Structures are given as structure tokens and as C-alpha cells.
């Protein structure tokens, strides 16, 4: 099998699907000739033609809104928001239309589009290039929201997203775009949306995380292991729907739970997970379900980012507090 990083795996997923399904088109700012600012669409225009893989004018609302039109007419658009922070101009189209057209028309018109968004901090970028907006999307009925944490998952989940009959927000943890290399099959495969993955099984505490936080949690778990603590790690993979079964099973076993997300705290993704833990495993709880999240601040520019982004040490610190609770 070929070893790929996440950029290559995502590129390969689109390449595979473009070859298979003529109704797929890929567009956005700089995705054509340039192959995307992160090179995620590199080579696709050359291979599949400029009618199928192309640059659009610089306007996110139109990029999203035209995708809806295309989808209704039978195409399967995969669009890119160049960075997390530039998805906001497209919010009205995503929230008011893409998420709702099926319901609005009682199933007559559907929007099988995929919206790719590189997201998250840790790459020393300018403002608006390091955001974690997943809760905005998760709170929007009608969307599915998927976040991979490995190259293998990225390909399988993206293919599932493309084949999904409904709109999927596909968020790519840009910080680990090239950080993890893994064997990834070159043929087509998919990973069901809505199923979490138990990355590490353990007995004393459950960590729930996703995206770039998985790697950090793994490091913290190594530290915890040295203390003799057994920690389970759940990679959510899908922000909505959430795999309650996996969470329930784990927390009922461990009785302790730590949620780790980079997004800011208030009304953030961790809050939803804490609520689910309460709903599913209240009587098993031996310590308060805890969240370790970004602050309720703008994510600082690079020189201040270290405070905001969650380190393995901070995760370990919370593990310790919970274990000793």
C-alpha cells in the first residue's frame, strides 16, 4: 500500500471519485491551476479537465450557493472554503439553504454537496486562518459535519461524504495535513459517517476528541500510561451526527470523561459532548465530566497561540485531576 499524508489522501479520494463519477465537480478559490493553497487539489485539473476542476471568482457566498444549484440539477459539487475563517461569508447560503433544501421541498430537491474546509490553529498563520467553527455547523440542522484525524480516515470519510445524499461539511485539520503518514489503499473505500473510532482502549477515563487533538491526546495518554493510568480515547470523526453508542459504552465503563477540543469554550463542541455524557451515563459518573477547550477569546496570532492551543501537557494535567478526583 502507498504511504500518504492527509493532503495526499484527500487528493486521492477526490481523484478516485472524479474518475468514477462524471457528475462530480471540484471548485473554489485557487483550486484549479494552483491546486489549492495547501495543494490538496494538486493535479486534479490536469487530470480531469478545467470544466470539472476549476477556480471560481473570489466570493464564498456564491461558491456555496452555486454548489446548491448544481446539486439540485444533478451534479455533485465538492467546494473548498480556502480557510475556516472564510467560510463565514458563506454562512447564509450554508445555513439557510444548503442545510434545508431537502426539508423545504419535502425531499424533491436535495443537495449532495461536500464543503471542504481546512480548519484549526497551529500553523503560525494570520488572523482568520486558524479558526475552529465546527460548532456553528454542528448546531445547524440539515448538515453532517465530519472531521478526520488520520490520512486513512480522511480518504474513507471524504468518499463517504461525496456519496452521501445530503450536504456534508468536511473539515480538515490543516495542522496535521502533513504531520501523519500512513498506509492508505489506492482503491475506493468508505468509512460510515456517524461512527466514532476507539483509538485507544482503557479503563479509568475516557477522552473524547477529534481532528488535530487526537494526536495530542495520544501523547498525553502515553504520559498517563507511565503513571499506570489506563485511558480510553475516542475519535469522534463525526461532529454531527454524534456516535452516542460509543460514548455511552465507554463512559459507563470508565466513569470519568475528558473532552478536548480546540474550539472556544462557551457554546462550543465540548458542551454538547458533556450533555450527551450526562444523558447517556449520568449514573456511572465518578467525577464531573470535564472539558479542556480553547478560551472564549479570539485565537491569538502566532506568538500568543501557544497559550490557546492545547498541549499534551495540559491534557495530562486534566487527566491527572480527573483520575485523582
Amino acid at each position, binding site marked *: 500500500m502507498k504511504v500518504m499524508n492527509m493532503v495526499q489522501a484527500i487528493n486521492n479520494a477526490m481523484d478516485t471519485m472524479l474518475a468514477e463519477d462524471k457528475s462530480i465537480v471540484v471548485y473554489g478559490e485557487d483550486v484549479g491551476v494552483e491546486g489549492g493553497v495547501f495543494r490538496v487539489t494538486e493535479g486534479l485539473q490536469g487530470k480531469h479537465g478545467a470544466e470539472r476542476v476549476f477556480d471560481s471568482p473570489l*466570493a464564498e457566498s456564491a461558491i456555496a*450557493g452555486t454548489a446548491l*444549484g448544481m446539486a439540485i440539477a444533478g451534479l455533485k459539487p465538492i467546494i473548498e472554503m480556502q480557510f475556516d475563517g472564510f467560510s463565514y461569508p458563506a454562512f*447564509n447560503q450554508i445555513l439557510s439553504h444548503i442545510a434545508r433544501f431537502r426539508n423545504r421541498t419535502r425531499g424533491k*430537491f436535495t443537495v449532495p454537496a461536500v464543503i471542504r474546509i481546512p480548519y484549526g490553529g497551529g500553523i503560525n498563520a494570520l488572523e482568520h486562518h486558524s479558526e475552529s467553527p465546527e460548532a456553528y455547523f454542528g448546531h445547524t*440542522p440539515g448538515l453532517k459535519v465530519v472531521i478526520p484525524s488520520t490520512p486513512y480516515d480522511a480518504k474513507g470519510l471524504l468518499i463517504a461524504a461525496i456519496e452521501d445524499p445530503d450536504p456534508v461539511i468536511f473539515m480538515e485539520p490543516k495542522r496535521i495535513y502533513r504531520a501523519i503518514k500512513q498506509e492508505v489503499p489506492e482503491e475506493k473505500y468508505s468509512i460510515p459517517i456517524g461512527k466514532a473510532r476507539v483509538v485507544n482502549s482503557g479503563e479509568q477515563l475516557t477522552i473524547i476528541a477529534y481532528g488535530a487533538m487526537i494526536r495530542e491526546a495520544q501523547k498525553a495518554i502515553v504520559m498517563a500510561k507511565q503513571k499506570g493510568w489506563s485511558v480510553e480515547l475516542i475519535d469522534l470523526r463525526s461532529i454531527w451526527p454524534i456516535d*452516542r453508542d460509543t460514548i455511552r459504552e465507554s463512559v459507563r465503563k470508565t466513569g470519568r470523561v475528558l473532552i478536548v477540543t480546540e474550539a472556544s469554550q462557551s457554546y462550543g463542541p465540548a458542551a454538547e459532548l458533556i450533555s450527551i455524557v450526562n444523558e447517556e451515563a449520568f449514573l456511572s459518573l465518578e467525577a464531573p465530566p470535564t472539558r479542556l477547550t480553547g478560551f472564549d477569546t479570539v485565537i491569538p496570532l502566532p506568538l500568543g497561540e501557544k497559550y490557546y492551543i492545547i498541549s499534551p501537557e495540559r491534557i495530562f494535567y486534566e487527566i491527572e485531576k480527573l483520575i485523582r478526583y
Partner: protein
Amino acid sequence: MFNQETLDKYSPLDNKVYQLMDDDGIPLSKSWKPSISKEQIMQAYKDLLFERTADFMAISYQRQGRMFTYPPNLGQEAIHIAAGMVMQENDWLVPAFRELGAWLAKGVSLREIFLYFKGNEDGSRFEKANRVLPVAVPIASQLVHAVGLGYAMNYQQEKAAVFAFVGDGGTSEGDFHEALNFAAVWNAPVVFIIQNNQFAISVPLKMQTKSINLAIKGIAYAVPSIVVDGNDLFAMQEVLAFARKHAIEGKGPMLIEARTFRMGAHTTSDDPTKYRTKDEEEEWALKDPLKRIKGYITAKKLMDFSGEEAMVKEFKKKIDLEFEAAEKHPEYPLDDVFAYMYQDMPSELKRQKNAYENYLQNKGGDQ
């Protein structure tokens, strides 16, 4: 007849209105002949009368408390009827929310329209109408959808045009701009129709923009554009027919400002006396599109209108039947809240639905 040459000679900078009949329906030029048949003219008159009757009925249903908010079309019907004549089966209609006659022409049933404005999504399923998008409430947001449809028509090599509507107010939204620009760059077969009815709720055009007309905005995108008398059925029909041809021949989008007047209220919850004068209303009443097409028919002696009253009666009966059908629509089931959010209902939605059903089952008789 409006043709490429007419378009080439036209510039919105001159602020001229393309118009064929005067206020009384008398053709402005002796040499002009309608490009549609007598039968079509008669049919257009009937359709316009039908739209107007349905509209009045809708308002009265609403007043009786049998329907919620409804946006009247009074005064703008010629635009809708003309579009209805021009649109073909495989063309797409992308409405704003004030295009009753155009929806009907595409096969949307009155029953569905009533059902929608009574507050049931079933009214947007459009069972027999193809290629009609539902009412778009967020102003101008529908225009980018139209461009996506247009891209798909090109991509799929279909000879079909997209008819996209927006109001004068809607031209101020960013999506208007993005849509026109994308359509031009993508050479999308979209016919953009601005229904310039002079007001966005209470806000008059002069507070909406400083430009002398709205067609002029097409220049920003190299999209051919024209101001048309929207109350002149013939003028609208000619220009729309041309624009459709232009689109399906691969010549790209056009922008049409249909100049008209909203003779009624913005919606049934609006009171126009707060923000406009009787004078203004009376001035525009002279240009009533129904009056004008009737003037033409009378002058050309195509028919007399002795049968009109009977026809309207007929219409009313039919409209009542449609409304009653909408009223008899099955009760909104709980299922429908959840069933259409996704193709396969995610377990989270099942869970929430179950919880509600449990509540219904358990609450007992005393609450």
C-alpha cells in the same frame, strides 16, 4: 420584434424603457406586430385575469384567518404571464416570492401555493411542476442558485435556460453582485429578472440605490441588460423570449429590469399608506397591466369583455376548490418535522422524535 440588433443598439445608460404599448394598450409603433398569435394573446389575458383573481382571493382568505402572510402580486402580473409564456418545460424557474403567474405557468398548483402560505412545507413539493425552485425568503440568495443551475445546464449540455427573479430591494444584497459576476464568468444561461416595483417593503427605490436604473448594474459584469416596461405584456414577452434564446444559444446571461409597481401591500401584514402617496398609486394605476392588455384587445377588436364576469366567477369557483383542497390537506404529522431533514433519518433525530412521542403517550388526560 426584439432582436440582437435591438439589444446592440440599446444601452441602459440612456435610461430608456423598452415599451410597445401605451397606457391604454395602443401600440406605440404602427409597424409593430405582436410576435405571438391571437390565441396566445387571449390566453395571456385570461391567465393574467386568473392570476389577479387568485391573488385577490388569497388576500381574502388571509383576511378570513384561513391563511398566514401572503405577498400580493397586484400590478406585476404581466411580468409573470410573459415569463410563463416563454419558459419551456426544461427551463428552470428560480422565484423570489412574488411571481404567482409564473409558478402557475410552470405547473405549480394553486393548492400547493395556498398550502405553502397556510404554513405547510408540503406546498413546496410541487408535485406536477418540474424545475421550479421553492419560494426564496432570504432576499437575493436565490440568484446564486440560479447560476449553479446554469452551470449544470452547460455542463450537461442541456439547452435550457434559468429564469431567476429578484426585487428592486434585492439588488442591494451582496448575492446579487456575486450571482451576476459568476454568471458572466461562467457564461451561465441565466435570465435575471428584476421586478422593480419601486419599493422594498417601505423603502423607495431612491433610498435603495443612486443609479438611474437597475439594468445599468449589468454593465459591471458585462451582462447585457435592459429596462423593460414590466406592465407591458408584449414588451416583456419579446424581451424574455429573446433572452431565453440568447441563453440557450450559449451567449450567456442577461439582466432585465422589469419596471412595474406593487399596487397592493408588501404582504398582508403591511400598510402602504404609511410610506407612499395616493398620487403615486393613482399614477401607476393608469399603467395597470390588465387594463393595458384589455385596451389592446379592445382596440384590435379581438373580443369583447361581456363574458369576463362569468369567467371570473368560473375562476373563483376553481380557486375556491383549490383552496378547499389545501384546507383538506392531511393534518401535519409529527413525522414530517423529522422525515425530510436527511435521506436516512439519523438516529439522533429518531431519538428526539421518540422522546416527543413518549411525552405524547405519557402525558395522560389531565394536561
